[in-house]
């Protein structure tokens, strides 16, 4: 198995945090490294364990949607693997001295899949739609600092902000929303129409989408990046489970599979013609602690839980050790933004202190608590058993409760999560990682009812400051507070594992788990 080093990918990480006054496009750096031997043509089939419920980038938050829609739809920036927001549909970005005005020069000659040429009107229209909370876009909250968008001429747009936002370029990447032709979203059925046609500017366009079966994309002939993409057609086949995906790879029914549990690929390592690779990720497997829930209201109980958990053991049980233990930052961003684990509180197992804290909190005989796992997230079941065992040592009795994903999301959004596992990822900027989750309402969603004024002030400040060193200091302070108060316990980031056949070349897996790598991949 080939392991792709974090250091290599993140070499530019720290430099990436610097926010110059002007950002210029560097096309060679978009979508990873090119391959001089690449040939055009060919069809590949990708096995996917998850299926997008629908393809609308404006109103569907599902990660399964983002994975594939990034190939058809583009934003103004691209979330580079190193953590840099690189101009994509923008050619250049300039920020004013006060940080409250961003001017984007747009690429010219960019075509939509509809054949229309992109202009500033389309950009303004698309982002205005996205930030309008009455339209129901999950990305609206991330754009709350935008007061107005102007289109002074066909090739430039200006974003006016109520407060500086250093994370704006990373916010304008490809997770939510995209640039689409002006007027397209006016139709009430535009969301579902995007299951039949794609209207983005991306390198692939939609050919067909048959739910519960397959999604087919074809090369967009008028794509603006010369020579890209290489592949003529990409089919995403919905795979029922990882065992079937392994079988499909062995029999060459599919060319690439992205596995969610690393141990599922172990049997494939010795199969001739298959390449198994590990990639660093931007995901995190965590425990969330609702600060309004029973005994978890007391910070000392939350700290006792943190002190009783041995993250490494949990990671070994859950994903056979194929990942990285983390403190308060996802593995893919640790070098650029993370505080070293030995500088963070409550990271080392200390059972005596945990027992003392429980006694001080009025629970000398321990506490009983429900621990929620989500059905279908296989790693959570062994992890829950390991954690229940570890907590038992300090007399915290955890009753494992399995809930269906829809129920879990409802509870999470209603801020009634209790004590639960979570599995989520981020685009590589600390503001996008923390703000909506931990900033007190109404600016943030504060799902865990932490309601911490100091944390909120730090998160506001981290968004406003553009000096990279100062930003890093602010987020370091925030992370120490997060570790100290433990509204969440980030445990580990699991490596992403891809298995591909020998005919698929130059595929690189992006840390988000999204399929950007197919843009520069080619079939031999």
């Amino acid at each position, binding site marked *: 198995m080939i392991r792709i080093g974090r250091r290599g990918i993140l070499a530019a990480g720290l430099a990436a945090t610097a926010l110059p006054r002007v950002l210029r496009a560097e096309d060679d750096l978009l979508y990873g490294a090119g391959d001089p031997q690449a040939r055009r043509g060919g069809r590949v089939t990708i096995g996917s364990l998850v299926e997008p419920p629908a393809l609308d980038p404006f109103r569907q938050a599902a990660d399964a949607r983002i994975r594939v829609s990034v190939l058809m739809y583009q934003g103004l920036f691209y979330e580079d693997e190193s953590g840099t927001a690189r101009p994509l549909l923008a050619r250049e970005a300039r920020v004013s001295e006060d940080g409250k005005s961003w001017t984007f020069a747009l690429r010219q000659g960019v075509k939509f899949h509809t054949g229309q040429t992109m202009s500033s009107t389309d950009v303004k229209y698309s982002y205005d739609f996205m930030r309008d*909370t009455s339209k129901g*876009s999950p990305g609206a909250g991330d754009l709350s600092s935008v007061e107005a968008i102007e289109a002074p001429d066909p090739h430039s747009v200006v974003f006016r902000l109520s407060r500086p936002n250093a994370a704006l370029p990373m916010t304008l990447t490809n997770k939510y929303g995209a640039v689409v032709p002006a007027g397209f979203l006016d139709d009430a059925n535009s969301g579902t129409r995007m299951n039949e046609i794609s209207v983005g500017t991306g390198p692939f366009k939609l050919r067909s989408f048959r*739910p519960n*079966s397959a999604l087919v994309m074809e090369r967009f002939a008028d794509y603006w990046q010369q020579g890209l993409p290489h592949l003529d057609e990409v089919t995403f086949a919905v795979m029922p489970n990882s065992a079937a995906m392994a079988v499909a790879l062995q*029999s060459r*029914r599919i060319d690439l599979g992205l596995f969610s549990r690393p141990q599922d690929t172990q049997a494939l390592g010795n199969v001739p013609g298959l390449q198994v690779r590990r990639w660093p990720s931007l995901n995190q497997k965590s425990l969330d602690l609702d600060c309004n829930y029973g005994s978890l209201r007391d910070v000392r109980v939350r700290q006792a839980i943190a002190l009783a958990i041995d993250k490494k053991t949990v990671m070994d049980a859950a994903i056979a050790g194929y990942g990285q233990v983390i403190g308060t930052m996802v593995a893919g961003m640790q070098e650029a933004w993370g505080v070293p684990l030995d500088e963070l509180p409550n990271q080392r197992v200390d059972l005596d202190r945990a027992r003392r804290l429980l006694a001080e909190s009025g629970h000398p005989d321990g506490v009983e608590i429900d621990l929620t796992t989500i059905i279908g997230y296989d790693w959570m079941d062994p992890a829950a058993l390991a954690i229940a065992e570890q907590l038992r040592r300090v007399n915290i009795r955890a009753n494992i409760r399995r809930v269906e994903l829809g129920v879990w*999301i409802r509870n999470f*959004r209603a801020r009634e999560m209790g004590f639960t596992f979570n599995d989520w990822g981020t685009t590589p900027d600390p503001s996008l990682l923390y703000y909506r989750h931990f900033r007190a309402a109404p600016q943030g969603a504060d799902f865990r009812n932490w309601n911490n004024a100091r944390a909120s002030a730090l998160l506001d400040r981290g968004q406003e400051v553009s000096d990279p060193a100062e930003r890093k200091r602010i987020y370091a302070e925030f992370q120490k507070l997060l570790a100290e108060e433990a509204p969440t316990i980030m445990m580990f980031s699991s490596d992403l594992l891809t298995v591909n056949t020998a005919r698929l070349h130059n595929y690189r897996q992006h840390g988000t788990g999204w399929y950007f790598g197919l843009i520069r991949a080619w079939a031999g």
Partner: protein
Amino acid sequence: MIALIARRLGSAAVAALLSALAVFLLMRAVPGDIVAQMLGQSGSDRSAEAALRGFFGLDRPVHVQFLDWLGRTLAGDLGASWYQGRRVTAMVAEAFGVTLELGLVTLLLATLLGVPLGMLAGIREGTRLDAAIQGFAMLGLSAPVFWVGLMLLVGSAAFLDWSPPFVYRDFSDDPADNIAILILPVLSLALLQAAAYAQFVRGLMVAELRREHIRTAVAKGLSPRAIYFKHALRNVLIPLTTFMGLILVQILGGVVVIESLFSLPGLGRLILSGLQGRDYPVVQGALLFVVLLAIGVNLLVDLLYAVIDPRLRR
């Protein structure tokens, strides 16, 4: 006969209405709705939730939603999928095509395999052959269908270096791929149903062969062929027809697992993904269809019964 049909249709209509109400209420009793699914862990505020809830009509009282849906359904409009935007009627028809193909081929194979085995075991009661067939039946009945499916999938890759394609294609588009993708799911389901058949038919044959008219036939010196096929099998046919209907309903009900295991976009998958995504129109429409289908099959079986046994026509 007409009175029988009218009676059955009347009770079928009541059953369908009650089922529709139950499905409607059950879907709404499950916590979480499509809005939460769409917004996920994003930090969107309450107004985004309210906007989406209004868009889907979820902000109206439940009884208003039900009456609206019922009115449209009675007019033949099951609405459109909230995710796909396609008409539910078209989605159900497309998915049912896949399920029906799977179901009918399975039924055919299970019948061709199970009925002769059951007859043979019944005729050769107490012999080694009987024991072997009963052993097969026990194995088939006790092995979970997903396990059989998974073993066939892994086994075919390991020993035959072959696996089915995982992208479903209609028979009219690509017959070879269509057949290839159906082989393992049909085998998985047919094994179970053939076992059920064998057990059932064996029991009937054993009972039938002990009856007096068979003894009389033997005493008359009729050939075994005439005894088994003309006298015994004929009487076995009536309960077997009922059983066949039940088996078909069971196959159609049991395909959820097998469709999921082999990536078949059938009715089971449609309902399951609708449930997971809280796509109410799809789940309501598809389940109503399944209920009507089950009622229809049972009605058909009753009518066939009447055709086979003239006494029931009175």
